[in-house]
């Protein structure tokens, strides 16, 4: 169980990372804000509480690895990596600019700290299975973490990977579904319903938990439980809200990729800070 002080520190860190992400996209003028904001807590927990990584040595052989298979959430991952010290925060203002090290979708060959290139949905899941298998072959004590979108889970490749991950009993693979219930064209309920996604993973013989994806206590309990499961991979379904913390995108259908400028970004940050008032 996380101490209250730790929860508060992580909560503050998450707010800081949300601000960085909002500014990063606002500076560009458009981007994948919705699915970036919904995974801030899990990224914060993993990079600032859990993963064995070293920003000064991003290629450390026996590190824990993270594959963000929903590669369009790159802006959130970049904010986290910058804040963690992989590269200067100034880089965030280069998002998607020609020649940048921070392209719209995660790229292991450009961005220090990105463990696998993603963008074509579904592909990160198989890569993560391969990485977890590789860690085991190398007898590393490391874990592979994988973030999959709920809309992304409409891709068949996700379920091919699910099958092979379970078949190989990859206890060192801990995956998360960002169940934010929205996709580019609208609500998953209307397009490819993902509400029962937990039972699907159960059917593939994964260890499955479903939690509030914005609660650090819940995330901590679930991740620590998953690490104890050695005979099969784990799926933690994160019940999340798309665009969480970016007020202009909350509760609307068209929040996958939004156009907004720096002024809107600062206004949204002000709203966020007011909400977080008790902690500031």
């Amino acid at each position: 169980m996380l101490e209250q002080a730790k929860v508060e520190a992580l909560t503050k860190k998450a707010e800081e990372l949300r601000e960085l992400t909002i500014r990063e996209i606002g500076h560009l003028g458009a981007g994948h804000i919705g699915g970036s904001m919904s995974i801030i807590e899990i990224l914060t927990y993993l990079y600032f509480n859990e993963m064995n990584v070293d920003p000064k040595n991003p290629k450390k052989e026996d590190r824990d690895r993270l594959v963000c298979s929903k590669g369009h959430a790159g802006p959130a991952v970049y904010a986290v990596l910058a804040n963690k010290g992989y590269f200067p925060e100034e880089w965030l203002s280069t998002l998607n600019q020609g020649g940048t090290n921070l392209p719209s979708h995660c790229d292991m060959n450009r961005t220090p700290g990105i463990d696998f290139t993603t963008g074509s949905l579904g592909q990160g899941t198989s890569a993560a299975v391969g990485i977890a298998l590789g860690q085991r072959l190398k007898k590393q004590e490391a874990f592979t973490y994988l973030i999959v979108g709920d809309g992304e889970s409409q891709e068949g490749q996700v379920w091919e990977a699910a099958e092979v991950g379970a078949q190989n009993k990859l206890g060192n693979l801990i995956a998360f579904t960002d169940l934010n219930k929205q996709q580019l064209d609208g609500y998953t309920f209307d397009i490819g319903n993902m509400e029962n996604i937990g039972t699907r993973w159960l059917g593939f013989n994964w260890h499955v938990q479903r939690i509030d994806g914005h609660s650090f206590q819940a995330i901590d309990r679930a991740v620590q439980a998953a690490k104890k499961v050695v005979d099969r991979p784990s799926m933690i379904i994160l019940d999340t809200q798309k665009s969480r913390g970016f007020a202009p995108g909350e509760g609307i259908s068209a929040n996958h990729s939004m156009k907004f400028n720096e002024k809107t970004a600062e206004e949204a940050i002000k709203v966020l800070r007011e909400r977080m008032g008790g902690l500031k």
Partner: protein
Amino acid sequence: MRNTSDLENMRDAMMAAINDLGKDHKEVVLLDADLSSCLGSDSFQALFPERFFNCGIAEANMVGMAAGLSSMKFVPFVHSFACFSSRRAYDQFFLSCGYAKQTVHLLGTDPGITAQLNGGTHMPFEDIALMRQVPGITVYEPSDAQSCYELTLQAYETGKSSYARFGRKGITHRYPVGTKIELGKGIELADGKDVAIIATGEVMVGEAEKALEALKSKGINATLVDLHTIKPLDVELIEKVADRCGKILVCENGRYAGGVGEAIAAHLSTVKPTKMAYLNCGERYGEVGKLDYLKEAFGFTAENIEKKVLELLK
């Protein structure tokens, strides 16, 4: 040095190479998609059980997994029938392996008419074109046991991804052990001055060799090139035979569009426009039948090569 002269099938030559690489390099892993007995990859499994993975009938995932293993510094060889290795897992090979700069050696067995009794659903002619579109990789199609073995070792040494297309069953022993076979460098099997035949793969090189004799009896001396490496193209040799003969027939167990013939024509058009003819499957899909039937059906025969040469020389 491995003696390939007693191998009975092309798949044995491929497995000899992979097993030898596995012995020398503990990073080599082998992934198969429920076609282990078809390739004989169970021989690798017997040698290195912890480095063999049967990934089930899920080729897209298998290729993606291989990319993940590559990022962990393993060197995966990945097998399925050529139709599935190329078409079914194409985006995974293109992005997770190619774009992501991971090294994966993809094996596509039974390309073109060598798919034989599996028929049209399993008979890729277009895999050459697809694989040529992946930047920076090596694409090769050996014509015999020794070249299959040698080229596979050399493809590994490049450190870059590759795609090998070859029939599993039957074998030709054209090159004795010790023959100089160099990835990226076609082999001149004859150096006549009247016409050049450039052939790729076991079926076409074999038929072209037979055609050479028939042409000679008509007083036509041809150059014959075994163009085992499709990408990168051996432009030096192609220009040399274009200079020598002025006329070229390209024979491939594949399609024109994006294929070997088109690649050669495109290159020569920029440096040395040359009169050309082609033997390929045209706009046809595959169909079922034994190899001899399919050779006749698609015109992949020595007789048809001879006919094409005579037309080219008119």
